[in-house]
């Protein structure tokens, strides 16, 4: 790799100023074109064999893309914010998270999310896609602006890795590096194929639009393929060639129009398009206590009523012989929406690790609490594997799960519930108060009944968690936490 040695240290310590309020990086953050640029960057990342393998094995982006996007944006904000302490903490968290991701790909080549060369490539794709975004949109950046931006991205890598040795020191040297990786290292990986051709065609509705499945599916059928075509057309020419990606007539014009069109949104009044606001809104569950959810809730209620009426007046099909199929379907649904976080049809350690990751992220856990939580999940995984993996292939299929549902609430799962209680109970007073509850579930206490005390004691917490996790009960707080897209 481009080992450039211990170069100028001012770049690494200079991160604080580089991410100041006026930085270019932050300027892009609310630019709608950045959404397209991020997709493009993600495809380029996924085309790197190591990253592609890590994504395919561990990532939840196919089944829970909105949650993943929101976590990424929050992380980028912390990393680029003015608060140095928050940045250090986030960098440490990201490092811990990535240190848990390693393995081997389908061809037995090892991957490791901590490999510095790999991490440099991630930052490189983000930088290059930002530059390309301006170029496609018809407003190319000036040379010194590019240099400034490059400095900021190197600062980002330095904040993560401690130094930015694996990215060339200057933009001038960056381009040969970038072209070499594109030409020599990128492959047509499975993860890339999924992003380009599956993700947008099957993108689940964000929580806000859950009640409007028809509307969502119609919009997706139209927009999904366009996003795919736009992204393909924006990829570097040599790579498209090598990966055998289709050249659709007019795709390039479409791509440039998309970037141009998205760029026009900058003429909207200040504050209309803030990434955080949009994402917050999308992640909002219509059941939440947020006032913004109200008008949508009204619309959704009307749709639900219409749906109920249609179902009720649809003539009944001939009576099928009913056995225990009802229970089984429930188990299958639970398997798909909650347990199989990566969406590959099996429950495996990465699925449970993804749950632990989501919980740790929500609660903003530090060490050693984070490791405790992961350990509890790891024990649960061993318990599940022992109990359910009847064919001994090391993972649990949907069929193995549905055939053995009742035996799910073993001691290790109870232990998970207890550890989760401990780490949620931030002040250690043995009850979850309103603030702690909100940190975990992102919603207020919603006990339907008029209790006088606004606290959630250990016993009730453990019981509710168990009945959700063993698939026995749907639960208003846990469903958005672990099942929402």
């Amino acid at each position, binding site marked *: 790799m481009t080992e450039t040695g211990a170069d100028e240290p001012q770049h690494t310590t200079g991160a604080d100023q580089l991410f100041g309020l006026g930085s270019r990086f932050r300027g892009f953050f609310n630019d709608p074109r950045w959404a397209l640029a991020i997709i493009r960057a993600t495809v380029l990342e996924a085309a790197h064999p190591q990253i592609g393998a890590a994504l395919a094995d561990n990532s939840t982006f196919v089944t829970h893309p909105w949650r993943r996007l929101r976590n990424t944006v929050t992380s980028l904000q912390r990393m680029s914010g003015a608060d140095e302490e928050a940045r250090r903490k986030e960098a440490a968290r990201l490092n811990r998270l990535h240190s848990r991701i390693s393995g081997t790909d389908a061809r037995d080549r090892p991957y490791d999310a901590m490999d510095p060369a790999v991490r440099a490539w991630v930052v490189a794709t983000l930088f290059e896609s930002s530059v390309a975004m301006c170029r496609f949109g018809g407003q190319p950046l000036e040379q010194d602006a590019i240099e400034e931006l490059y400095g900021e991205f190197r600062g980002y890598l330095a904040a993560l890795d401690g130094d930015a040795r694996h990215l060339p020191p200057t933009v001038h040297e960056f381009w040969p590096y970038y072209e070499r990786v594109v030409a020599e290292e990128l492959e047509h990986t499975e993860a890339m194929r999924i992003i380009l051709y599956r993700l947008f065609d099957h993108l689940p509705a964000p929580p806000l639009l859950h009640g409007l499945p028809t509307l969502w599916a119609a919009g997706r059928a139209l927009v999904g393929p366009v996003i795919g075509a736009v992204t393909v057309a924006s990829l570097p020419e040599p790579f498209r060639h090598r990966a055998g990606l289709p050249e659709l007539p007019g795709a390039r014009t479409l791509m440039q129009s998309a970037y141009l069109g998205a760029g026009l949104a900058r003429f909207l009044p200040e504050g209309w398009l803030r990434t955080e606001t949009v994402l917050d809104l999308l992640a909002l569950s219509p059941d939440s206590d947020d006032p913004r959810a109200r008008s949508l809730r009204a619309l959704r*209620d009307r749709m*639900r*009523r219409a*749906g*109920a*009426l249609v*179902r*009720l*007046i649809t003539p*009944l099909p001939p*009576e099928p012989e*009913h056995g225990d199929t*009802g*229970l089984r*379907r*429930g188990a299958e649904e639970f398997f798909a929406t909650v347990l199989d976080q990566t969406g590959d049809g099996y429950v495996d350690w990465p699925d449970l690790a993804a749950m632990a990751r989501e919980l740790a992220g929500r609660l903003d856990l530090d060490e050693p609490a984070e490791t405790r939580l992961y350990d509890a999940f790891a024990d649960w995984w061993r318990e599940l594997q022992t109990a359910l993996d009847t064919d001994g292939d090391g993972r649990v299929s949907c069929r193995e799960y549905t055939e053995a549902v009742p035996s799910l609430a073993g001691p290790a799962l109870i232990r998970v519930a207890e550890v989760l209680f401990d780490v949620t109970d931030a002040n250690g007073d043995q009850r979850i108060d309103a603030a702690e509850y909100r940190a975990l579930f992102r919603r207020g206490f919603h*006990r339907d*009944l*008029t*209790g*006088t*005390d606004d*606290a959630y*004691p250990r016993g*009730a917490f453990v019981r509710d968690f168990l009945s959700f996790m063993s698939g026995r009960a749907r639960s208003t707080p846990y469903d958005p936490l672990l099942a929402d897209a």
Partner: protein
Amino acid sequence: MTLEEVVDGSACGPAREEGRRGVPRHVACVMDGNGRWAARRSLPRTSGHRAAETTVIDVIEAARSAGVEWLSLYAFSTENWQRPGAEIDFLMRLVRRVVRKHAPLLHARGIRCRFLGVTDPRIPPPLARDFADLTTLTAGNRGMTLTVAFDHGGRRDIVAAARSLIRSGVPAEAVDERCFAAHLPFPDTPDVDLVIRTSGEQRISNFMLWQVAYAELIFSPVLWPDFRAPHFLECLHTYQRRERRFGGVRPNENGERRP
């Protein structure tokens, strides 16, 4: 609809004259006698259930036009699971057909429907789905509230309320009737003013135990499949002639309204 109400209202006389009280706010019916109705005709029990459908619709319509605000029907108790499997299967299919058949009508009549109980896993999921759909469909209606007790047990509801109360951590001294009632399922349901049980049986059979505390009880000798709107209106008249004291000397009025 309003015109009709006025006409029907004057016909059955809910007018609050001196010394007479109005229409009961909450009427609850124990629909008894389907089996005997069938036996008297040497028909299988299932045909008694089938004949009950007409009565149910008739009574709902009579109650609505008489100005009853809450009507509760005891369709299936937790004890009914002990009946033969074939009869239960038949009942489940019948109820599903009835619910689907009358859903648009109930909705058009502005009736808010909901189902009390419905917790047993033996309830076929499609039926539970239809219950949920009908509840959703009619949730916004402001006419009469129809509560169908299905897989219901009064004691079970009280136990569930006690559980929920303990879970909410209310100190023992702070528990009073009002606070306890808030933990019952559908806590907005007002006290039952009138219980009608058909077929001459004189029991309450674990039906909405908490809510019937002060209810007037009327036991009609008519079997449920033969029970019709005129019988129902007759029961309302009987109720109106009775004097309700609630153990004290309060004047005639309906039971307590819940918040």
